[in-house]
């Protein structure tokens, strides 16, 4: 029976090619616009570490007080040196790390080559196990290396390729800012997007790769400059890098792993206790105003998904709805034009259900054709987002099987929905009336 309906549908669609092409184009463009913007939205709103994001938390301490809070009463979104060091030393979470962005230069062993600049982070040893950082060779450094401010470094696979041709470089030495560092680990193509461990400085997404990771305390001891943002509520009282460390300026990112609800509660109490203690000692002249957000909540509060991406997706969905309304109108015209044909079929004994099946089949065929066109246009759309979107976002959008399947599915389901009312009207055609008027 389906074969018969398909034959009927194809014959009907061929009879008015203009209208058919119009419907297919409408569905194709509507679906493609939605899926192209969705591919971008999907890329930027994804969870960078889905298996663990609910256990990762970002603490915020209000070291600025009322004068430094935003209109929403939020404390600063980074930490000053004093508080970050206190949290690391107290070590109340299962794993934790303070982080700050550095940009040291590396001098190649080959003297004929110019020095290169790198981007990276100074972190604690627990950074690597906490974030399940994948290693190609070696591993992170030990807690003892943190304390001893050891000259050790973890490098990206890209830098390893550049300096050592991709060979296992663990144990080899590289010259960073004029000092020798022993390579202890090489990352295995680690480039999470968004750059969730330091959203404040990366703004979420970045085309650059973190090439080097050094022990936090060593970077501090060597006065390695902070390459990220520094925000102050008051001008530091002393000058220099030491002045920055003694000030309430915020420039350090912080993350902690807390495995269950009770650990989260305990940590929250610990933070409040700490702020309370600071209040009693006179450093804070205000009540505790801390935050402890899980990673997904943190990314949300930092507005990592650009509002442009969200607005684009909404506008494209609006376009899809208009396309569906349009298709519904065209299908209605097309179906009702065949009232007499329906009348004859009904008079010859066709059930209402058969009419439903016949016309929904026709709508479905339009949907499939629109979906196929939508696939092509979505492919083109995703390829061309590079022309209109910022590089760091455009490179994330990609076509994959899920996107293609979804494109086809949405095209067919949407067209069937658009065809429901016209089919309902077609099935209600009164056979007697149609036969009489002929």
């Amino acid at each position: 029976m389906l074969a018969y309906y398909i034959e009927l549908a194809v014959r009907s669609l061929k009879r008015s090619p203009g209208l058919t092409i119009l419907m297919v184009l409408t569905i194709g463009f509507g679906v493609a616009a939605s899926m192209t913007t969705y591919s971008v939205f999907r890329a930027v709103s994804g969870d960078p570490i889905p298996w663990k994001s609910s256990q990762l938390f970002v603490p915020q301490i209000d070291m600025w007080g009322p004068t430094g809070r935003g209109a929403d009463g939020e404390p600063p979104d980074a930490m000053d040196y004093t508080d970050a060091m206190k949290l690391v030393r107290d070590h109340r979470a299962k794993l934790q790390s303070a982080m700050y962005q550095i940009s040291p230069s590396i001098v190649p062993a080959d003297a004929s080559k110019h020095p290169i600049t790198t981007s990276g982070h100074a972190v604690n040893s627990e950074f690597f196990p906490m974030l399940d950082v994948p290693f190609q060779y070696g591993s992170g450094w030990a807690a003892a290396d943190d304390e001893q401010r050891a000259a050790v470094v973890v490098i990206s696979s890209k830098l390893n390729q550049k300096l050592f041709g991709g060979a296992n470089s663990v144990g080899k030495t590289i010259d960073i800012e004029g000092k020798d560092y022993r390579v202890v680990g090489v990352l295995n193509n680690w480039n999470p997007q968004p750059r969730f461990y330091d959203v404040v400085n990366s703004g979420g997404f970045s085309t650059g790769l973190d090439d080097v990771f050094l022990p936090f305390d060593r970077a501090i001891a060597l006065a390695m400059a902070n390459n990220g943002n520094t925000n102050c509520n008051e001008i530091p009282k002393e000058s220099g890098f030491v002045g920055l460390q003694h000030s309430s300026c915020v420039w350090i990112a912080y993350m902690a792993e807390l495995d269950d609800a009770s650990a989260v509660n305990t940590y929250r109490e610990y933070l409040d206790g700490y702020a309370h203690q600071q209040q009693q000692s006179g450093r804070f002249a205000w009540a505790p105003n801390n935050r402890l957000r899980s990673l997904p909540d943190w990314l949300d509060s930092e507005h990592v998904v650009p509002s442009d991406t969200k607005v684009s997706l909404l506008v494209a969905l609006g376009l899809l709805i208009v396309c569906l309304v349009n298709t519904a109108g065209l299908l209605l015209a097309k179906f009702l034009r065949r009232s007499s044909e329906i009348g004859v079929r009904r008079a010859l004994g066709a059930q209402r259900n058969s009419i439903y099946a016949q016309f929904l089949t026709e709508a479905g065929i339009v949907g499939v054709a629109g979906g196929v066109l939508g696939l092509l246009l979505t492919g083109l759309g995703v390829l061309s987002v590079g022309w209109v979107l910022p590089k760091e976002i455009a490179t994330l959008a990609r076509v994959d099987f899920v996107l293609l399947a979804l494109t086809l599915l949405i095209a067919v389901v949407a067209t069937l929905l658009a065809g429901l009312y016209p089919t309902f009207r077609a099935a209600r055609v009164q056979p007697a009336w149609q036969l009489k008027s002929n």
Partner: protein
Amino acid sequence: MSTHPILAALRKHKAGVVLIALQIALTLAIVCNAIFIIGQRIERVHRVTGIDESNLFLVTQQWVGAPDADDPAGIEKLDSMQREDLAALRSMSDVASVAPINSVPLLNSSWNGSLSLKAGSELRKGGTRTTFYFGDENMISTLGVRLIAGRAFTVADVQHRSLHDQTEPSVVIVTKAIADKMFPGGNAVGKAMYVDGSTTPTTIIGVVERLQVPGTGSWTNTFVYNATLEPLRIDANFARYVVRAKPGRMEAAMRLMPSTLYKVNPMRVLDEDSVKSFADIRAEAYRADIGMAILMGVVCLVLLGVTAAGIVGLTSFWVGQRHRQIGVRRALGARKIDILHYFQIENLMIAGGGAIVGVALAVGLNAWLMKHFEMDRIPVAYVLVGLVALVALGQAAVFVPARRASNVSPIEATRAV
């Protein structure tokens, strides 16, 4: 022509009428907001920076194994390295002028703070927000900023210090935006004020017409032209130089830049981003805005195309359906133009009704976007222009099927379908 028969006929096609009207309403709502977004982005991109952007480029470089900027000897050494670079750049034949600088407009790397008439005020909540440009006596002329009052910096004004040193300069130049805000009575030159909550006063010695801040994010919207220029060379392990090439010689100057700097001192890092023309800085800063405008433009075109095609499709169907009635009307004496007008007025009523609903939807959508995203209130003009445009689109789309209807011969009346 009486509208009564048209209304009576519309009642027979309720579903089709509602679908077209709904489509026009949704199209109007989306197109108005999309065009508003485009307008805002274009306005943003066309903001003037206040500098002369042609023949201008920026050099950012980092020294390897640089002396410590936290100790006085290190600062002196860094400063002499910087002055050596400046001298080498100034001696290049393609270069007109050079100044050390911490940032330029649209670079999205900035040093911000506040100015106040009171000593020791709050850094974040007191006073006038400003960005700071640090540079030497050549900064204003190299940028091509117009000085409208007072004097420019002289060699004697220029100090040098490390990035983390908090001593404030004794003289600064501010933009007109700041001068007008802090000294509404005019004549800011010679007045004293306090930088970043400091307790020692700083004197304004000059006012420049306009200079945009480096940040382009929405957080800078409240102080786009609040800039303070300080006569200061910053001594750090990196340095930035803004270079004005002689007319037409920018490419050549940019090409020679790395080798010239390596010749002065090879222990430095220059990468592909180190030498950047201002045109590139501008393009990068507004890439997202232009992209969004293009995207919204494409969506608008598709929407209008789909809606116009939908009107053509449905009206054609109606014309086909009413062939006989049209024939009867023609036989009874209606002229071609009457038939044409019939369909045009019918479309005007449907599109007009849809567009009025659309205006409400457009304002509602705008209010929703304002609540959830950074969006301004849509001006009434946008909505009205959208309304007129969609009604015009409806008329244009209906013309072809309506003309076909007007060509129906009166003889159709005598044919039995």
